[in-house]
């Protein structure tokens, strides 16, 4: 997947006309989830944890797996934890992901409501090309874990709750990795246990000591930026 394809640069084509009243969400030809039930409504839900790998590919995650720290459009590093499931209603599924520091029990979490993309054999999943269908666990910059956020075991919890209240949760130990090609050095810097916000993380050279007093080296021509 080209993650930069979801970059923030948008362009507004036109604007400004009186706002029509919003329609009923499910009333017209557009709006509302129309996906068919996945699997057997009377059966217990089944869920597998998946994640986006270093090349944007889907990886199956289980106890002891490595999991990638990915550079998202907004910066930092995120664990994209998703689900593959059956015997659930695919519409408005609540997916919750959490990464816990086993030493301090501190946790970072992300919960969101998504539709599961139907795949095969009655299963649905987080859509590989849509990072918003994964729990975006904001791991780095590391301002929460005592140790490095890479190459050490962390506890990953992923749960799924459908709109009928069917819920399944999995807890496992994973090892986050700075393994996204081209972004390893910056990841190793901002995910380090001693990272401080604003530390200059050179993408080519890894980390070096922050100079928080300066922040910027060059002097702009007009320091005040006010009207002349």
């Amino acid at each position, binding site marked *: 997947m080209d993650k930069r394809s979801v970059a923030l640069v948008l362009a507004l*084509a036109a604007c400004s006309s009186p706002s029509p009243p919003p329609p009923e969400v499910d009333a017209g030809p557009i709006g509302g989830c129309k996906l068919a039930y996945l699997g057997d409504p009377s059966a217990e839900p089944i869920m597998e944890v998946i994640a986006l790998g270093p090349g944007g590919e889907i990886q199956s995650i289980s106890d002891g797996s490595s999991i990638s720290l990915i550079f998202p459009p907004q910066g930092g590093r995120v664990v994209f934890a998703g689900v593959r499931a059956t015997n659930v209603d695919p519409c408005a599924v609540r997916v919750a992901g959490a990464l816990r520091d086993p030493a301090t029990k501190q946790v970072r979490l992300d919960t969101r409501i998504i539709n599961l993309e139907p795949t095969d054999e009655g299963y649905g999943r987080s859509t590989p090309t849509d990072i918003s269908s994964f729990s975006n666990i904001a791991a780095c910059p590391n301002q929460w874990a005592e140790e490095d956020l890479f190459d050490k075991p962390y506890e990953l919890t992923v749960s799924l709750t459908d709109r009928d209240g069917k819920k399944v949760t999995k807890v496992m130990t994973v090892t986050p990795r700075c393994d996204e090609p081209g972004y390893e050095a910056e990841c190793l810097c901002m995910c380090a246990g001693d990272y401080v916000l*604003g530390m200059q993380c050179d993408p080519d050279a890894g980390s070096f000591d922050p100079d928080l007093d300066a922040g910027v080296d060059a002097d702009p021509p007009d320091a005040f930026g006010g009207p002349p």
Partner: protein
Amino acid sequence: MSAFRSLVLMALAAPLFFACSSEPNPPPTTGADPAHIDPPPAGQGFQIETNTFEVPAGVEKQDCYFFRVRDLAAANGLDPESPVYVNRVQIAQKEGSHHMNVFRVRTITGLDPANGAIQEGKDNVGECFKSSNWADWPLVANSQIDGQLDWTFPEGVANEFLPDEWLMLQTHYVNASTQGTPSGEGKVNVNFWTIPKEKVKAQLGTLFATKQSIRVCASNPTPSFDGSCQFKSDVPVHIIGANGHFHSRGKQFDMFTWDGVSIDQPPMDQRFYSSQAWDEPPMLTSPQLDREVPAGGGVFYTCSYQWQMPEASLGCDGLNALDKQGADDCCYTFGPIVEANEHCNIFVYYYPKSDNINCF
């Protein structure tokens, strides 16, 4: 109202009146121009300001202004070689501001003060629109659509600015259908009032968190997004300022104090911020807001949305054209444009400072 009751109320109110009137700093001078405030007197702080700029109909303007603390201090009678300690922030703006943020400049990517003290953007074009450019820039102050603020921090609480730090003021004005700029002009003034170092008892810290991987789509019309962010403090901290930011599909914005270890949403008695009005978000500040967070704790926040048919001039075809996913699902995605994008941002101010915190 009876005379007796009036006297009782006056007696109860008197201490508040005298407490306010005894503040060392005079109130802002306001007149016909809502953007006007007198700067602090020499030696008591400094003012940063934008130009007066045009915001034509149909335009979203977002400009970034850079200021170096040393220069600001020197220009207003403060020691340019010493840190300054800000205890009061005043913001005044012409009507039409969508948001105004002040950040400390840190890692330079696409937005570099070396490229000019003023860097303009229009309709989502320009480096000042790209949030990745200030991903690790700590928050200093902010306002939203109500562009007026006058906030004195608790006694002895101050935000420390170092002489060589750069500040970036980012102003976003909207003159479109969901929000207008009546005068067709934007203008921002921000006053930072200082106190002597010896009067500082605790430093102010800030926490900024944002969810950018969000979609509000026709096929998933009522999504919500929850997140968390720790202060990483070994001692309890006090939240004394908070506001949330989303756009017109936003229906409920909540923030809770959080223990830093629980996965589930905190109970409602821990909710300290709630907004149902995207265009009139509460701007909570002390003394009305003062919530203690336990050591190791932080903030849990949630943004809930209701999908709406887009403006006729944009339409689902317009939204679909903007959707890099190509989902053909009439989705509002993250971004600054009010008509076409959504946000889920929290701005939190606290003390004593452990660090400035960014979560995204």
